């Protein structure tokens, strides 16, 4: 008789799987996370998850929390959506993020701005400096062209369809998939407007840390960059770790770095004056 022929046997078979460890999985409870950044207490960790190549995750994190994304093996490409968790109709606005800060290249000290003139998150630490705000998510068509298919149920998922699932878990849909940021893969703009991509190889372990300036929903898709020139579906796991932290104080240097950014923080503080 097979080991799953009866409900009793199937139950025992299912329960015997517990405790299995794989590379891409969440740490639950998050306070059991290991290899934390210096100074972070395990008790303060609220999310720890390794996202597979081609995988995705979506999560709510509180104002003041830090979210560290680590490119574990040097070939991750994290496409990122951000919403105000309290009122998700407010979301990351890439055009405003670049225009208001007078710069197209995001890195340490830069702000991620919403479409309501507020800071959703600050980049408080960036060991990579190789990101892309121009090219957006891969989609079914682009992955089908490059890899033969791009289905969620296949071997080459595309970032847009990963986003569809990530936002669906929060009751959001296709119309809510806004223009995204691509982290860890660099795109620069040449003198004639041409996009210049650099997919590495990069050293393993580079990380980027965001500070949530509002309560956020973050949606991450870890798929090859839409302009990745390699034939293979090349992408490696990314670790997401978040921990509790204080709300940004008035004297914070990032808050005060530019007049435009300061007004974005003032608008956040105005939003929370209730």
């Amino acid at each position: 008789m097979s080991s799953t022929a009866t409900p009793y046997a199937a139950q025992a078979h299912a329960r015997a799987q517990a405790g299995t460890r794989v590379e891409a999985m969440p740490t639950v409870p998050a306070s059991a996370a290991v290899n934390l950044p210096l100074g972070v207490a395990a008790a303060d960790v609220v999310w720890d998850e390794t996202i597979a190549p081609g995988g995705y995750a979506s999560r709510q994190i509180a104002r003041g929390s830090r979210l560290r994304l680590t490119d574990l093996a040097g070939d991750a490409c994290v496409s990122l959506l951000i919403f105000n968790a309290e009122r998700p109709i407010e979301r990351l606005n890439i055009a405003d993020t670049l225009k208001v800060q007078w710069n197209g290249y995001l890195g340490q000290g830069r702000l991620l701005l919403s479409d309501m003139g507020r800071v959703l998150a600050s980049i408080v630490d960036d060991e990579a400096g190789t990101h892309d705000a121009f090219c957006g998510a891969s989609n079914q068509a682009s992955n089908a062209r490059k890899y033969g298919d791009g289905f969620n149920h296949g071997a080459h998922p595309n970032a847009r369809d990963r986003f569809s699932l990530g936002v669906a878990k929060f009751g959001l849909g296709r119309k809510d998939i806004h223009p995204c940021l691509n982290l860890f893969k660099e795109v620069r703009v040449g003198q004639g407007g041409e996009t210049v991509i650099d997919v590495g190889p990069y050293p393993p372990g580079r990380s980027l840390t965001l500070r949530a300036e509002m309560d956020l929903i973050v949606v991450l898709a870890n798929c090859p960059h839409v302009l990745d020139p390699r034939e293979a579906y090349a992408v490696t796991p990314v670790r997401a770790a978040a921990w509790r932290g204080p709300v940004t104080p008035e004297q914070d240097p990032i808050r005060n770095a530019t007049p435009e950014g300061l007004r974005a923080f003032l608008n956040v503080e105005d939003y929370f004056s209730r």
Partner: protein
Amino acid sequence: MAFDPPPLGAVVHNEVVAARAPWLHAVKAGQTLRIVDLEGNQAVDFLVYSAADDAERYSAQDTIAAQKNIFLREGSVLLSNEGRPMMTVTATAVAYHDTIGGACSCESNTLRYGHHTKAQHACVENFLVANAVQGRGKRDMVSNVNWFMNVPVEADGTLGIVDGISAPGLYVDLRAEMDVVVVVSNCPQINNPCNGFNPTPVRMIIAQ
């Protein structure tokens, strides 16, 4: 880059959009929409939705990635968020147009210029008003095209809206590759050079 506008087919719609005003119109596959910058350097903020399924809409990022260039020029194809061609720039008398600068809003104006600008009219207001007629709302706001607007990017990533490179009478022709709905804000911004600090009317011509 064609300086003189090419001949159009039979005109089915011809309208002057007032300075600062919104505009919405359907354009059928195969038809051409000509936008004429009547008085010069007037930014025309522009979104386009699939008429059959408005969750499919213009995607600046898909368009940039596919053509590997941030500027829209003659020959550029406006792609949807599903990677499908929506419209093609068949002719334009302006060297390039912008699609990274986005639309001005009351809220972003407070960051860019100060809270004294919050009550000024803005492109997002126009987009919201025009889209509301067809049941669309704020989730339908995505990165747009800015016809006749100039946003260069320097080597260190510095970018900004600078003096325009358009002139009175210059145009852009867009052939619809699918049935679409075009939504425009004739930009009311007065705090930067996108409209030469003086918003002016533009002409919209739809031809077979």
